[in-house]
């Protein structure tokens, strides 16, 4: 996997346990669908909580990257909603304050599962995707 953007964090679980982790995004990759159509997909990971993922078939590299940026935001939202916090250093003693930095980094890409990202979604496909993402996710 050719990761080109990374961010190291230490996840603080509700129990107080700390686990080193990483959020990373890979270069968009080209693929070919069963029907022969070319597409792009951008994989991402929120370690060690969630495995490497890549959703959707984008028509170009920008769309693939935007999908990944959004889905990372949804995965982080799922973690935060479970009470997980993030610090940047072992000795950091203010998990909530440090988490604000992560929220600021992801900014508008922090999305509630089921949110269609503020765009028209008449068939509910985007909302279904983010809901499915949340439904299959339980922090390990």
């Amino acid at each position, binding site marked *: 996997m050719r990761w080109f953007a990374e961010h190291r964090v230490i996840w603080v679980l509700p129990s107080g346990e700390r686990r080193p982790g990483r959020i990373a995004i890979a270069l968009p990759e080209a693929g070919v669908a069963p029907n022969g159509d070319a597409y792009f997909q951008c994989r991402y990971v929120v370690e060690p909580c969630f495995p490497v993922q890549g959703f959707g078939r984008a028509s170009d590299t920008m769309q693939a990257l935007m999908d990944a940026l959004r889905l990372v935001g949804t995965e982080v939202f799922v973690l935060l909603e479970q009470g997980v916090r993030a610090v940047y250093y072992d000795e950091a003693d203010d998990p909530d304050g440090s988490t604000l930095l992560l929220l600021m980094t992801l*900014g508008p890409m922090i999305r509630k599962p089921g949110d269609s*990202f503020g765009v028209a979604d008449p068939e509910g496909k985007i909302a279904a995707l983010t809901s499915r993402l949340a439904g299959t996710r339980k922090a390990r």
Partner: protein
Amino acid sequence: MPMKPETDWIAEHPIIWVLANGERLHGRLALGRPFEVEGARDEWRFRALYAVEPFHLPQGFGQFVSTMEALYFAARLLGRCVFELLASGVRAARHPDGDPEEGAALLLALLGPLIRDDGDLRGVADPSGRLADIEALAAKILRRDG
């Protein structure tokens, strides 16, 4: 870690801008691979370039502690540039004879939450209002430097 990112675009989106007078211009949205700023001496040393061509040639802003922070910030700046274009009446098409309004809607769908009101936290719990304060500050910085 690349030090000369000028040609290292990792995400691109060709586009045809449709000006208010109907003129069509070929352009491109692009995000570059984050790189280490030459001469940076502390942990705040990463930056990513973005381009909204032909209106905004490749540029970058700020220095960040990780490549991911740099990438997200560049994406937000790109979104702001597109927002300002659309707000000024410019529209977009994917094809030379494409419908401008339909193309603009597709562009909004592509960038989604990057096209938004400042200070909108999209449902993240913020009982103390601290996140909103930070978001407002970030928006101010984006307006000033974007």
